[in-house]
């Protein structure tokens, strides 16, 4: 029986991992993701899962061991954050090129330096070009639900891509929230008891070489395979979300629109900020201001068409980036959304706010200020930093 319980984001992810019951977990502790694997390690110690837990000496080895275990046909998971994810970067594109459906719990945290343990999206955003599917969560419930869906998505033979599900560090990872936990049996039925790999190192009757060197004559083809898989994964993500909704009642998509259809002013955001934005929108609507939100749930594959479609009738849009793009032109979401709208016949006027770096507070007042800026968008700079001291 599904039940409502109090779980932090980390507890929710660990609970999903227990129910997923992966064959191998290899992970290294890092704030604020540590709890995910700490809680999971206790599940292993108590014999609640079949998992072989590999307590590696670094995140680089965590991802390396995940690649080995996944190549051997196992269902494999890990969890990390910030510097840990950065330390994995070298192996992330190898995991996707080898088409290994590793699933990662990633807790968004600023990257050094200076060292900072709090939330922003710079770790995950910098990992966006490694062939991983990336799903952001607004709250613990979404993190839990998305993690379960991620297994199905990653292992789908039309996809076969590693997938990371992210929560916002501390804001979600350490916030106790009311979530619905589904029944163990229903999860097993939904994701399938075991992974069904196309090939495995342990298939001794059909030995294979995985990870050979490609030269000028094959590398390009293999990279295009990854690019096509990412593109095609949209379909699978939606199918899995629809099936999840049918079975468990909560509907997800690549994006989520909140009071957007008739909005004059919209913001685009990812992660926990979307929750606060919804409250602000309700308050503004009560005052007669037509405010709306476009939440991006899936950042890779990038839902360019869906975003362009959703924003096509909006007058003024502010894109909120919890990471800088270090390009002198705002954050990564802003750049990609602008590109997505390039062919639009009715593109909105658009500005960018880079906000919340290193856990800098983002509250209702600041979001109300963003909507305020949209009223006189012509006077606004293309990119501004929200909540920073001059």
């Amino acid at each position, binding site marked *: 029986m599904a039940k409502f319980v109090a779980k932090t984001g980390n507890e929710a992810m660990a609970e999903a991992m227990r129910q997923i019951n992966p064959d191998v977990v290899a992970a290294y502790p890092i704030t604020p993701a540590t709890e995910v694997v700490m809680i999971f390690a206790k599940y292993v110690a108590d014999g609640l899962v079949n998992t072989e837990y590999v307590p590696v000496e670094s995140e680089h080895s965590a991802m390396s061991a995940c690649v080995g275990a996944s190549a051997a046909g196992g269902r494999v998971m890990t969890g990390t954050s910030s510097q840990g994810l950065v330390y994995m970067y070298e192996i992330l594109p190898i995991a996707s*090129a*080898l*088409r290994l459906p590793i699933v990662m719990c990633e807790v968004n945290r600023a990257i050094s330096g200076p060292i900072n343990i709090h939330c922003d999206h710079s770790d995950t955003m910098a990992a966006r070009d490694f062939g991983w599917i990336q799903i952001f969560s607004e709250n613990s419930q979404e993190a839990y639900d998305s993690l379960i869906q991620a297994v199905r998505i990653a292992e789908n033979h039309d996809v*076969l891509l590693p997938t990371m599900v992210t929560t916002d560090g501390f804001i979600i990872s350490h916030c106790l929230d009311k979530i619905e936990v589904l029944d163990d049996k229903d999860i097993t039925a939904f994701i399938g008891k075991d992974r069904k790999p*196309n*090939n495995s190192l342990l298939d001794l009757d*059909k*030995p*294979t*070489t*995985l*990870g*050979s060197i*490609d030269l000028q*004559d*094959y590398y390009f*083809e*293999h990279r*295009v*395979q990854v690019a*096509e898989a990412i593109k095609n994964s949209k379909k699978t993500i939606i199918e899995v979300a629809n099936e999840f909704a049918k079975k468990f009642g909560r509907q997800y998509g690549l994006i989520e629109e909140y009071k957007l259809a008739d909005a004059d002013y919209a913001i685009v955001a990812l992660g926990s900020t979307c929750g606060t934005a919804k409250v602000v929108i309700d308050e503004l609507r009560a005052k007669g201001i037509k405010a709306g939100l476009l939440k991006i749930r899936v950042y890779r594959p990038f839902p360019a068409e869906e975003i362009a479609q959703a924003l096509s009738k909006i007058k003024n849009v502010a894109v909120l980036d919890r990471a800088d793009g270090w390009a002198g032109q705002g954050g990564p979401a802003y750049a990609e959304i602008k590109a997505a709208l390039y062919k639009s016949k009715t593109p909105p006027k658009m500005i960018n706010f880079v906000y919340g770096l290193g856990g800098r507070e983002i509250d209702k007042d600041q979001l109300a200020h963003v909507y305020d800026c949209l009223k006189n968008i012509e006077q606004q700079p293309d990119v501004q930093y929200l909540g920073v001291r001059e």
Partner: protein
Amino acid sequence: MSQQKKPGWKELAIGDILPAGTAEKFETGDWRSERPTWHPERCIHCLFCWVNCPDTSIIVENGKMTGIDMKHCKGCGICAKECPVKPDKAITMGPER
């Protein structure tokens, strides 16, 4: 080999994966500048040549040497060097023709 049309991304297996042992089809015999010659009448089938061959090019059947795989042998000469037969070795090296 090079004349064949190479597969496109749709035709290639998913991921950087290969069935085992396809290098057998790749001939490195043309790398040789020196060529081993086996003298079966002198061979004592000790298999020192076989176990020291970097190119898996000594052919052994039922525990006895039966020849050299010239499609893959690169002519390094380890087999001749390691051959213990005296005074004349069972494998000798000469120029590749």
